[in-house]
């Protein structure tokens, strides 16, 4: 039995085993964690997220799921499929495109959403993009303000969405740690961290007034590791940028900056081929890669367990000002 002692069968298998009454006595020798009485943490998190997604679909007139193409979005999308199966997902996806997303992200987005048959909306701040907004000229804060925050608020308003799912997790960043699952936004889309609605049990208050909205975070209680486990377990497709391979990068100190945009130019000798991958996907000028050999999902998980640096440490934008994420969130950023 030792060979399978650590292996956790799928829930359905466990259930079938116990229900048929054909389980062999060997089950007794398995560790307590594999007992059919017990759900593991991934199953518990999945159940919670599905409950949240269904509540929103039932209580709001016009919900939308923010889809960023990243790993968290991919998990959220799978959870939405599960929440309504065998019915289709009853709301569209919205991608806020800054124009600086990696080419591979956009290709993946278009192909995957078409495959699933979900409705995808794309919103861009075309004025700012036409004016040549970029992080080098504007600084990361103002660039994010125009291309992400403003675009998001405009997009939500244009379609009249009253609830928007986001894939943010509480373990990502300190100010996210106290975010509610149903996060109330006033009619200007702003967050008031000092005056949040208390949230008890699994009872979510979805009542809003005219022009107000709710941001909903069904992955609040997932960690980065949980996300990867789920992607592996569920075989969820992800953008290949997450997996290590030889890529040409601008190497400066510890930073690996992707050479996607024409304005990202290295000094002589700084442009090198490096085996690397991205831990989180953002805009190519502001998302650093990490040196890594993890070219499969299990290896990413193994790498994460070893790694002692938090995931957003490679995002340039979170570090430009102390507490900068909280400032951005108050203004309407996810």
């Amino acid at each position, binding site marked *: 039995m030792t060979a399978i002692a*650590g292996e956790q069968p*799928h*829930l*359905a298998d466990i*259930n*079938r085993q116990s*229900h048929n009454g054909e389980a062999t006595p060997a089950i007794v020798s398995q560790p307590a*964690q*594999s007992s059919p*009485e*017990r*759900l*593991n*943490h*991934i*199953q*518990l998190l999945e*159940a919670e997220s*599905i*409950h949240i997604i*269904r*509540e929103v679909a*039932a209580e709001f007139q016009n919900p939308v799921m923010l889809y960023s193409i990243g790993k968290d979005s991919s998990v959220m999308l799978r959870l939405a499929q*599960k*929440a*309504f*199966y*065998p019915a289709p997902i009853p709301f569209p996806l919205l991608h806020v495109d800054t124009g600086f997303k990696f080419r591979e992200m956009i290709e993946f987005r278009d192909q995957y959403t078409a495959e699933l048959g979900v409705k995808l909306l794309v919103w861009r701040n075309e004025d700012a993009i036409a004016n040549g907004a970029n992080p080098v000229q504007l600084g990361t804060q103002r660039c994010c303000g125009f291309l992400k925050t403003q675009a998001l608020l405009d997009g939500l308003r244009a379609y009249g969405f009253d609830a928007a799912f986001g894939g943010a997790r*509480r*373990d990502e960043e*300190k100010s996210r*740690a*106290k975010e509610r699952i149903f996060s109330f936004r006033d009619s200007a889309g702003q967050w008031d*961290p*000092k005056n949040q*609605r*208390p949230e*008890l*049990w*699994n*009872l979510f*208050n979805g*009542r809003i*007034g005219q022009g107000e909205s709710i941001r909903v975070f069904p992955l609040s*209680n997932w*960690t980065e590791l949980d996300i990867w*486990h789920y992607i592996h377990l569920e075989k969820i497709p992800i953008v290949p940028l997450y997996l290590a391979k*030889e890529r040409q990068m601008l190497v400066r100190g510890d930073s690996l900056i992707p050479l996607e945009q024409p304005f990202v130019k290295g000094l002589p000798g700084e442009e090198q081929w490096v085996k690397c991958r991205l831990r989180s996907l953002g805009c190519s000028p502001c998302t650093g890669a990490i040196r890594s050999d993890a070219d*499969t999902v*299990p*290896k990413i*998980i193994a790498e994460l*367990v070893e790694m*002692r*640096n*938090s995931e957003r*440490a490679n995002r340039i934008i979170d570090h430009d000002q*102390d*507490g900068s994420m*909280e400032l951005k969130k108050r203004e309407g950023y996810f």
Partner: protein
Amino acid sequence: MAQGDNTPTAVLEQDEADLRIEERLAAERAKDLLRFSTAGSVDDGKSTLIGRLLYDSRNVYDDHVRAVTHNAEIDFAQLTDGLRAEREQGITIDVAYRFFSTAKRKFIIADTPGHEQYTRNMATGASTADVAIVLVDARKGILDQTRRHACIASLLGIPTVIAAINKMDLVGFSKEIFDQHSRALVELAKHLEIPDLHVVPVSALAGDNVVRRSERTPWYGGKSLLELLETVPLAIERSNAGLRFPVQRVLRPHQDFRGFAGQVNAGIVRPGDEVVALPSGFRTRVRTIATWDGELDEARVPQSVVLTLEDETDLSRGDMIAAADAPPHKTRHFDATVVWMQNKPLRPGASYFLKHTSHTVRARVVGIRSRIDVEHLAQNSTNELGLNDIGEVTIETSRPLLADRYRENRTTGSFILIDQEDNTTAGAGMIRSIADAGEGTGEQQAIHGILDVGNRAALAAELERRLLAEGALVLRTRAAVSNALVTIARLGAVVLVESDDNQPVMFTAVHGADPAPHELAAEQLDEILDELERLGAIPNNGDENDNGLGI
């Protein structure tokens, strides 16, 4: 990638490496998930304790540690404190959630403040917790705030309380002092009916008995704080109630499939189980448990699944599928403990929206029986509850709830009250005792009168469904309103009249001598039902507030 990697030997090694990873992943996935809440003031060293717990169990990232290390000393409290405002004030101002894991379990910490004005946050953190950690300063013993934390943990039904006697280093790791505090805590737990209490001597700053057992407390034979957290049972493992499955949404992708999406709130469900659809009371059997991952042979609390039933059954959002042999109470009157969470005080007679499971109704607080003094564990009579007050109230709802007592089920026994003007969450409640209406009482409360909906066919169908579900006698007709219909209504029926007219919804109450149609200023189903109640079409037994509630 080097050429050599593609040789057969390298591939074999590669596979073995992947296999080893897979084994580790499987073990990692098998962990369950324990939620615990911490409460305490700045001076108790609560943030320091959590920081120490995370640091010693190797759950903090290097860049976080670097950010809070000053002069080579780690500020453990800063590892857990978050927002700008609280850094400025030097206090934790809201519920912050933290995540960590050990080889045995994954954990979610709901870190809540100890300041008096933030009782609501403490209750919030406690509402989903399996375990509460209450901090006691070894130099001070049980204080008002200790009683407050323990009392809130008890009220919110947290089964396990771990009292951490902190700052043991400052009292020379004295066994006498520890024993003295332990005795007082055991008394407190007995008084508050906390089923499972553990007392641990710790020093958060120095790390004694936080993760590893300390040599400086040789007289303490128990587990370290982390060992306790790794071994206590989850709250859901303690309940063995009958099935509770509130319907969140009806799924009807095509003609051949009608499924009820929801989360198992209590019990276990299997295909073939006899269940009752509530509020209609219709009995049927579970046909399948449908999920994306295929049909299941069993689903248990808290799984989110879709149930299909053997018979065509009338159920929609807010209704419930329950164990046929152990159904919940169906009630419009109950006593509850309410934690008040808004500045506007709660006064008798006030109305709110009440959300309970997937069901939102209108509710009136008919009486406030007492305010609980959580620091002195006493009940004082009062006629209002202010922000952060906790009190015993009596509530009446417009529609019946399918509920259990909170002690029996934290999900079907809890509700929130929502302000009707600004939609804020005004209060959170736990049902303590239910005036069991019984079948007979329910029928007496059925609506009667004539409801003329004109050409609103969809509304008529939905009204018919809801009224039938509530046990009303319903006659749906296209005959014009006449004395015959008045007579039928007087006998206790709701006569639902349809026509081709595009007209407002009209209601004729029939208990007076001269019944006259009355225009209802309502078009939505719930508004109509509420309006009918206001007009007295649903008789309210005025004396029910004074009897049968065990006041």
